[in-house]
């Protein structure tokens, strides 16, 4: 029996971002360290795919609660999703031990930040922010997260009974149950109370910028040394070969070579991929502040004195124009074999 009630809150877009089932698997490890514990799933709005409830059950969810409202605006907005969550919480948590702390986990995103912080505020719970790790110690929720642009890790203990937190799912969410072993139930909660009118939103289409950098397992990033937007096409090809995301440093964003949503650094995204391929990036502290401290860096730069080599695990002093296409070709050849 877990010391804490653990819930994952799935919001629209989570599957694209990295997998609702992956979030659930990460939550199961948190629920009882070393022995996957009981985790309930709350799905807000229409699931990204019809089979999501079954996926969550197969990934080990003890129950799945589908929360809907006919007046939910599309695309979804944080304010309405927050209202939906608050309306559904009593029903979604009715079978849980009331004398135990509860932890509500979201897959990290700006929308999740907004909902988690708002829900914590409205329920008198603790908002833990974007956590690198969460543990349950003596029925208390203890979280670690970075501060000072990634230069410091802080371990926080929640003083409130209940907590809302965001994490980056690190598990694949592969099925752990099948057939009769799946005993969890799916419930539906249809909220009928009036929702606040959505904010009026209009959209101007732009070329898709591909996979989100903040949740990718591999990030290929270019800097001033790339020299122009054409070079980012080659970096994009390398990112595709690695099933990763394309990113850029501030100078590349300022030059208009990559969109600001793909910027990595103190003034951009904070990324924690498995590996970060830095091409034509000198490695200023401002840029490194956007890269998680445990990330392996592969540096390619024609300047042997570039600071990035002091931070990288593996380095290549060469012209990226020659090396990057060759790396892509080798990876593609390896994939074929």
């Amino acid at each position, binding site marked *: 029996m877990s010391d804490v009630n653990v819930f994952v809150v799935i919001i629209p877009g989570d599957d694209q971002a990295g997998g609702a089932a992956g979030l659930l698997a990460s939550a199961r490890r948190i629920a009882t360290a070393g022995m996957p514990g009981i985790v309930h799933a709350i799905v807000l709005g229409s699931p990204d795919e019809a089979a999501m409830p079954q996926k969550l059950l197969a990934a080990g969810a003890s129950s799945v609660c589908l929360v809907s409202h006919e007046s939910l605006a599309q695309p979804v907005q944080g*304010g309405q999703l927050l209202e939906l969550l608050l309306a559904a919480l009593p029903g979604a948590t009715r079978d849980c031990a009331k004398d135990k702390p509860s932890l509500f986990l979201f897959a990290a995103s*700006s*929308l999740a*930040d*907004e909902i*988690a*912080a*708002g829900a*914590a505020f409205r329920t008198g*719970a*603790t*908002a*833990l*922010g*974007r956590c690198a790790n969460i543990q349950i110690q003596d029925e208390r929720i*203890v979280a670690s*997260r*970075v*501060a*000072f642009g*990634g*230069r*410091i890790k*802080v*371990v*926080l*203990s929640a*003083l*409130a009974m209940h907590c809302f937190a965001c994490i980056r799912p690190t598990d694949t969410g592969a099925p752990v149950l099948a057939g009769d072993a799946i005993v969890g139930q799916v419930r539906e909660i249809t909220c009928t109370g009036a929702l606040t009118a959505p*904010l*009026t*939103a209009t*959209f101007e289409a732009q070329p*898709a*910028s591909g996979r989100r950098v903040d949740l990718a*397992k*591999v990030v290929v990033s270019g800097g001033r040394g790339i020299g122009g937007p054409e070079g980012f096409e080659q970096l994009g090809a390398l990112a595709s070969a*690695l099933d990763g995301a394309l990113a850029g440093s501030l100078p590349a964003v*300022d030059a208009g070579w990559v*969109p*600001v*949503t793909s910027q990595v650094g*103190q*003034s*951009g995204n*904070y990324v924690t991929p*498995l*590996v970060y391929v830095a091409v034509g990036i000198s490695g200023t502290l401002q840029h490194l502040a956007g890269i998680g*401290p445990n990330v392996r860096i*592969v540096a390619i730069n024609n300047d042997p004195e570039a600071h990035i080599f002091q*931070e990288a*695990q*593996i*380095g*290549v002093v*060469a012209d990226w124009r020659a*090396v*990057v296409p*060759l790396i892509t070709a*080798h990876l593609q050849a390896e994939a074929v074999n």
Partner: protein
Amino acid sequence: MGLRIAVLVAGIADVKWRAMELGVALDGAAHDPAVARKLSPFDEAAIECALKLRDADASVHLRCIVASDSVDAGLLRAVSAYRPTSLQGVLISQDTFWDAQALAIELAPTTVCESSPADLVLVGREFGDFDDGVFAPSLAQALGHPFVALAQEIRCAGNDLVFVRELSNARECIQTQAPVVASMTNAKSNRLRYPLMKNVMAAKREPALMSPLAESQQLRTRRAVSVMAVIAKARHDAPCRMVSGTEDEQARAVADFLGRLLNAEV
């Protein structure tokens, strides 16, 4: 009176300082006052967007609130150089900075402009060195206002405000009436202008005081986290393995490294 805008900024420790030089104690309480605070890119975006609105309408009331855990008034003077209509320096204890919700409760009353609530409250998407996105939505909750996240530009459209933000495949324009809280993210369009030199000099001559706020009963009851430990992060100790050889040999070595790493993960 025109639009009332409140901009909250917190500043960040200069990024040139490494973890061990920041002086943050193991319990998170202490901080080296020698480490200067600077405006973060998100603070700058919030200020610049407010200045653009004032450029378009001289009747805009621009109030800036500078929250810091340092008595160093450099940050306050940096903001003062943009000549806001009113400016307040607020000294916040560092344990409150660790708790974004408590900080939002404490700072919400400071957004009042000349006895009237602000129509538009702007804050960087991360508020200082301790926040990672909790403060701005918490402030919206504390004020009871709608919230727009990660805006890059703001303009007035009649009685409405229009917030422009960039999504992965579209630009989104959100139109709403005041009051509203928005978190700002940096973009090429909101890079902070340089202040006029005469205003920089005037700001240096003016008294600048960081004053503590009286801690409210509500804040005392809402403080929700305690700091257990602070750990300086080092990326790794081993030196970089430099790959030599021909370009093809270098490329093959990198491809092998990446392939091994990703296969091990699978």
